[in-house]
């Protein structure tokens, strides 16, 4: 069981703090999603794993010890800014990268051919990279991160620019690597797109972790959600003014409702909501929904900023877990 650990990473670009004591860890055997809005510090953190970012403080550990160059050769990296030699042949390029990561010539050639086959671009092995379509270039790029059979796979926005079939293909590769006992960390700014792809997530904002844990835990915790549709009421007028109920979304009449905890002064429960809906008209859809990761993120961020305001206004701070 291997483990990557980021401990207190801090990086400031002039007045901008890209990483602010960022700490989390990734264990093998599961796909970990590294999520956050654009500019949250995901790319900087991933670069720090490879020593490509000068840190003001903090340390990256691999299996408990500070990460070395030899360790990094056993890591695979797909940078956010994709890049291959445009004029180099696909197979040659993969062999070269494999050899730079320590493979023997024959092993590098075999691994390159194997990954090109598995990713469906074996036919382009002898083509120049620049002559490939963007989608195929993405596949070759993914192969370049995998060619040396790395122990840790770090992929920065591997899904950007892919169609649904491409996303499935990448998801399959990631799951396969995790099953084979590898550490897999990938980033995305589209939080809801990756819910199905990863077992655990680390969500960051402004260089700090705001929520982390198993996807199942995060999405089932927090205030309950309902999805309710009343026929003939596309505006969702019926739900307005219900005590303890907030409409978070209206998808063509299917309302997504967030209920205040029953313990609160204006508590609401699903039964009372269902009664109100039935009173308004025939109910065609009614279900209990999980929290989306984007909702997890929004709630965590709003709690944090509320706490920060409380601190700055001098009010007493209630300590509570950020991922609640």
């Amino acid at each position, binding site marked *: 069981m291997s483990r990557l650990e980021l401990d207190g990473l801090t990086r400031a670009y002039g007045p901008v703090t890209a990483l602010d004591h960022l700490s989390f860890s990734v264990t093998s055997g599961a796909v970990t999603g590294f999520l956050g809005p654009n500019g949250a510090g995901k790319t900087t953190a991933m*670069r720090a794993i*490879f020593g*490509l970012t000068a840190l003001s403080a903090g340390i990256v550990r691999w299996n408990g010890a500070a990460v070395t*160059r030899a360790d*990094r*050769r056993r*890591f695979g*990296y797909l*940078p956010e*800014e*994709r*890049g*291959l*030699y*445009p*004029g*180099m*042949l696909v*197979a*040659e390029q993969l*062999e*070269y*990268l494999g*050899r*730079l*990561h320590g493979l023997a*010539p024959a092993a*590098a*050639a075999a691994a*390159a*051919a194997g990954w090109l086959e598995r990713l*469906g*671009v*074996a*036919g*382009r*092995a*002898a083509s120049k990279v*620049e*002559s*490939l*379509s*963007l*989608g*195929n*270039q*993405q596949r070759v790029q993914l192969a*370049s*991160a995998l060619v040396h059979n790395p122990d840790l796979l770090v992929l920065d926005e591997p899904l950007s620019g892919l*169609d649904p*079939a*491409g996303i499935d293909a990448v998801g399959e590769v990631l799951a396969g690597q995790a099953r084979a006992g590898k550490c897999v960390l990938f980033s995305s700014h589209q939080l809801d797109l990756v819910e199905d792809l990863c077992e655990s997530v680390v969500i960051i904002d402004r260089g700090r972790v705001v929520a982390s844990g198993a996807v199942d835990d995060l999405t089932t915790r927090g205030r309950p959600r309902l999805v309710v549709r009343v026929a003939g009421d596309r505006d969702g007028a019926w739900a307005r003014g219900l005590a303890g109920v907030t409409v978070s979304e209206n998808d063509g009449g299917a309302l997504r409702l967030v209920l205040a905890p029953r313990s609160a002064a204006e508590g609401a429960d699903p039964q009372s909501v269902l009664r109100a809906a039935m009173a308004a008209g025939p109910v065609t859809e009614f279900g209990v929904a999980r929290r989306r990761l984007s909702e997890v993120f929004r709630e965590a961020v709003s709690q944090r900023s509320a706490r920060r305001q409380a601190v700055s206004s001098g009010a007493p701070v209630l300590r509570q877990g950020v991922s609640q």
Partner: protein
Amino acid sequence: MSDILPFIVVFGTLAFVIAVSRRQSGNPGSRPRPWRGAALIAPPAASPPTLRLLPLPGDVGLVAARELRTRVRGRAFRIGTLLVLVTVAAAILIPALLGNKASTQRIGVAGQLSAPVRATVAADGTAAGDQVEFVAEPSGQAASADLRAGRIDLAVVDGRQVVTAKAIAASDTSATAQLARTVARTVGTGEALQAAGLTQAQAAAVAGARPLPLTSLAPGGPDTTSKNATFIGVLLLAFMLTQYNTWTLTGVLEEKSSRIVEVLLAAVSPGRLLAGKVLGIGLAAFVQAAVAVVAAVTLTKATHSDALAGVTPAAVASTLIWLVLGYAFYSWLYAAAGSTVDRQEQAQSLLLPLALPVLFGYGMATSAINSGNASVLFHVLAYLPPTAPFAMPVLVSLGAATAWQFALSAAISVGCTVGLARVSAAVYRASILQTGRRVPLRELVRQ
């Protein structure tokens, strides 16, 4: 020779620029196709080419081998090699061809010309590197007609008149002009000797007198042929330093702008990546230089040219040593410069200031070669790493540098290269991952 070389250089440079720009505009690159379709209609797999790598150990060897392979396969290398070969061939073949054309001088003789005078004229011609052929002319008028028609180069009429087709200026150093002056003197002397009443045998003995050998207090400068060879050496040095260092710059820029550098740096340290690149391109340069030297020697042997007559192995060795030292010094500078820019257009603005010291060194070297002696400034330049690659080989060919001076200059250059390599690696590290803008100098200094 030094008159026509600039034209060769200008012509060659133009050809190179045209070839490169045609290559860039002629190959816009194929547009991406929809990606699912591309996988389906992909052509059948050709067997992937296997990598042939240099037997160099470690990352530096891998990087260098890739560079060398990519460069030697590339079109720019082939065109560059062709240009170098054309320059070498022109420098050797053109004088040889011109020399052959002027090697026979035809002298029309109308009336009497005594045998001793003929013999002396023939001997003068041979001494000047010409063959002299006498053509009997029935009359002075016939000789004039032949002169005008270009069938003969000069005419001697009745042993008292030397006629040429055109008036000969005092500064004219062509073979015909020199021969005409000699013939005029010889014929005049012969006539004076006969008028003085000497017998034919006595006249022949006086006319055949050989000049005394000259003795000098100090060895003289190089002769014209070794001057030309030194000139070609310096020219090739400037050409190669500029071309290969530009490759280093664009190579670094290519890795930065294509973003592959991030993948590479995740596996290889910046210093090693840079060292491998510099080494690989340097090996390509040396392959080309070796081709040039082999071609020069072969051509010289084949055409019996004397273009390399005054060139000692030491001079060739010193030029090659300074090719390596000069390349090593400049490549770090160019590599660091390449890492601070993001696009080809930005690189253009850097190339001129970087080329200035090369041009300056080249200019100073050619003027020193032409004047045949080295100024104090030139001696100073021979110890400064940016100009030493040009100044020191010239000093060697002028016989104005001792072995320890050569070694001192080389040591200074190596020392400065090591220092420069450290600074360049630091600049590279600070700027190679900063994309989207040109990294300002101020920021680099701070980091």
